[in-house]
């Protein structure tokens, strides 16, 4: 198990691994020494928890490295882990419905356009390709698409954030 632990430590960014790797391994060794006296189910749970913890920790460390912060505003995971009473907000359901409706409408529109230009673009001609395919505009287009998707995702997460905690802080203020 120690070998696997050391392997998974390589998922962390090198700076993180250098700073905490040895210390984490020491703590893992101590925890494992204690757990070895217990049953196989407890040992299994311990192993699984440790490995999952490493994978999650490595993901967060990389995210931190990329964004310069933990970006909890973008990935507010603790809102989900801390509040078991969490309910799916109506605003999010509404937003998701709007996105779904938009997608369906776009597909419908595309189908209608395709049907209307059938005579102009007969099947034996094949799909129309751009005369000059350039790399940079394609990349810019892809980035714009990714940005739009990210913005929609952020909007959903923002709506999720404004759930129970928001209401509680409002109550506290009115105390």
């Amino acid at each position, binding site marked *: 198990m120690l070998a696997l632990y050391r392997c998974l430590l390589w998922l962390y960014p090198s700076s*993180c691994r250098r700073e*905490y790797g*040895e*210390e*984490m*391994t*020491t*703590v*893992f060794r*101590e*925890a494992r020494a204690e757990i070895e006296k217990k049953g196989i189910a407890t040992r299994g749970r311990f192993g699984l*928890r*440790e490995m*999952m*913890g*490493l*994978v*999650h*920790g*490595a993901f*967060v*460390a990389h995210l931190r490295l990329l964004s310069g912060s*933990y970006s*909890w505003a973008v990935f507010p995971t*603790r809102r989900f*882990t*801390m509040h078991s009473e969490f309910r799916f907000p109506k605003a999010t359901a509404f937003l998701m419905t709007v996105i779904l409706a938009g997608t369906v409408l776009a597909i419908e529109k595309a189908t209608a356009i395709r049907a209307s230009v059938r005579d102009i673009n007969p099947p034996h001609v094949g799909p129309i390709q751009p005369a000059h395919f350039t790399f940079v505009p394609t990349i810019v287009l892809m980035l714009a698409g990714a940005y739009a998707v990210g913005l929609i995702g952020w909007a959903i997460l923002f709506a999720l954030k404004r759930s129970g*905690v928001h209401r*509680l802080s409002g*109550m*506290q203020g009115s*105390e």
Partner: protein
Amino acid sequence: MESLPLTEPVLLILLSLAGQPRHGYSILKDVEAMSDGRVTLSTGTLYGALRRLLDDGWIERVEEAESSRGRQSYRLTSGGRRNLQMEITRMRRLTRLANMRAVPKEM
């Protein structure tokens, strides 16, 4: 910056360090004991939280001559202690509010 309200694991880590400086394994055991075995941190989770708290200046490493790289102790900074106190005050207010609103008054 670690923001309020704190997650339960982070709060328990800070409470563990409030009494005395501790090293990683000692924090793990103390958190487990404080939560009656309900919160069991993995080393990945623990060191993710410690790193964040170190970066935000809530905790600091204890400089000990005999401390090796594999056994490093941590303690609360004055800023970390102040923030912990703020969180406790926030929770106390919330509990008072809950008692006023949710607990039925005696007839």
